[in-house]
C-alpha cells in the first residue's frame, strides 16, 4: 500500500513548517516571537502525529503543549524583566563553535538513521495504515496493564513537581 502524493505533500509541508518554526525559535531576536514560532512547530508536529495515526497524541499535543505550556511560557515572559539583547555578547567565536558542533552532531545522527533505514531517498516500505476502532480503549488498557507501574510513578512525579514548583516559586519572607 503506497502513499498518495497528496499525503506526501502534506508530510513535506508539515515538516518544512516544523523545521522553520524550530529555526526561528532558536534564532529569533525577541523571545516572544520565539514562543510564537515554538507554537508553529508544536502545531506542525501535532499534524504529523495525526498523519501517522497517533490521533490521541495529536490531541494531547494540542491540549497540553499548545494550550498549556505555551501559555505558561507567555506568563513567564510577562512576569520576568525584559532583556535588551538576548544573544551571547561579542563572543561570536563560541557561537560559531556551538553551531559547528551541533551541525556535526546532527549530521552524525542523520547518518545513523541512514544506516538504520537502509535506504535514504527511496520509497521505504510503508506499513498499511493501522486503523484502530478503539484506540483510546487500547491505550488505556496498555496504561493500566503493561505500563501500570510507570503510570503510577508518573502521577507521583507530577504531584511532586507541582508541590515543588509551588515551594520554589513562593514568596520568601
Amino acid at each position, binding site marked *: 500500500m503506497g502513499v498518495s502524493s497528496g499525503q506526501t505533500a502534506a508530510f513535506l509541508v508539515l515538516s518544512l513548517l516544523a523545521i522553520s518554526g524550530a529555526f526561528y525559535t532558536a534564532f529569533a531576536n525577541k523571545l516572544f516571537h520565539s514562543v510564537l514560532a515554538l507554537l508553529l512547530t508544536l502545531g506542525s508536529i501535532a499534524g504529523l502525529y495525526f498523519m501517522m495515526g497517533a490521533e490521541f497524541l495529536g490531541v494531547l499535543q494540542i491540549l497540553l503543549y499548545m494550550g498549556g*505550556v505555551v501559555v505558561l511560557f507567555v506568563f513567564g515572559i510577562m512576569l520576568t524583566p525584559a532583556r535588551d539583547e538576548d*544573544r551571547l555578547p561579542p563572543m561570536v567565536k563560541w557561537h560559531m563553535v556551538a553551531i559547528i558542533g551541533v551541525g556535526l552532531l546532527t549530521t552524525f545522527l542523520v547518518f545513523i538513521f541512514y544506516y538504520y533505514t537502509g535506504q535514504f531517498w527511496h520509497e521505504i516500505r510503508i506499513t498499511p495504515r493501522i486503523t484502530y476502532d478503539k484506540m483510546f480503549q487500547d491505550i488505556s488498557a496498555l496504561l493500566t496493564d503493561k505500563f501500570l507501574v510507570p503510570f503510577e510513578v508518573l502521577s507521583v512525579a507530577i504531584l511532586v513537581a507541582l508541590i515543588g514548583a509551588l515551594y520554589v516559586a513562593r514568596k520568601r519572607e
Partner: protein
Amino acid sequence: MVLSVLLIVSTLIFGLGILAVVTRRNAIGMLLGIELMLNSVNLNLVIFGRFSERIADPLEGQVYALFIMALAVAEAAVGLALILALVRKFGSVDADAAGTLKG
C-alpha cells in the same frame, strides 16, 4: 521516503533545540530549547512505533511519548518556577547572572 524525511525532521529539530539551549542567555529561551528537544524525541518515538517492524504494538511508542509529554509539562512548570525564584534573587533572567557558585 516518509520515514527518512520524518527522521531528518526530528533530528534537525533536536539540533536546533540544542542550539537554542547553548546560545540563548535568557533562561526562558533555554527552556524553549529543551521543549524543542523533548518534542523531537516524542516525534521519534511515534515514528519508530509506527514504522518499525520489530515492535509488536505500535501503541507502545505512543505510550512512551505520552509519559515524556507529561514529564515535559511538569518540567516546564518547575523550570518556570525556578526562573521566577532566580528573578527574585538576582533581578534578572540572565543565566549568567546566577554566578554565586562561581569560585
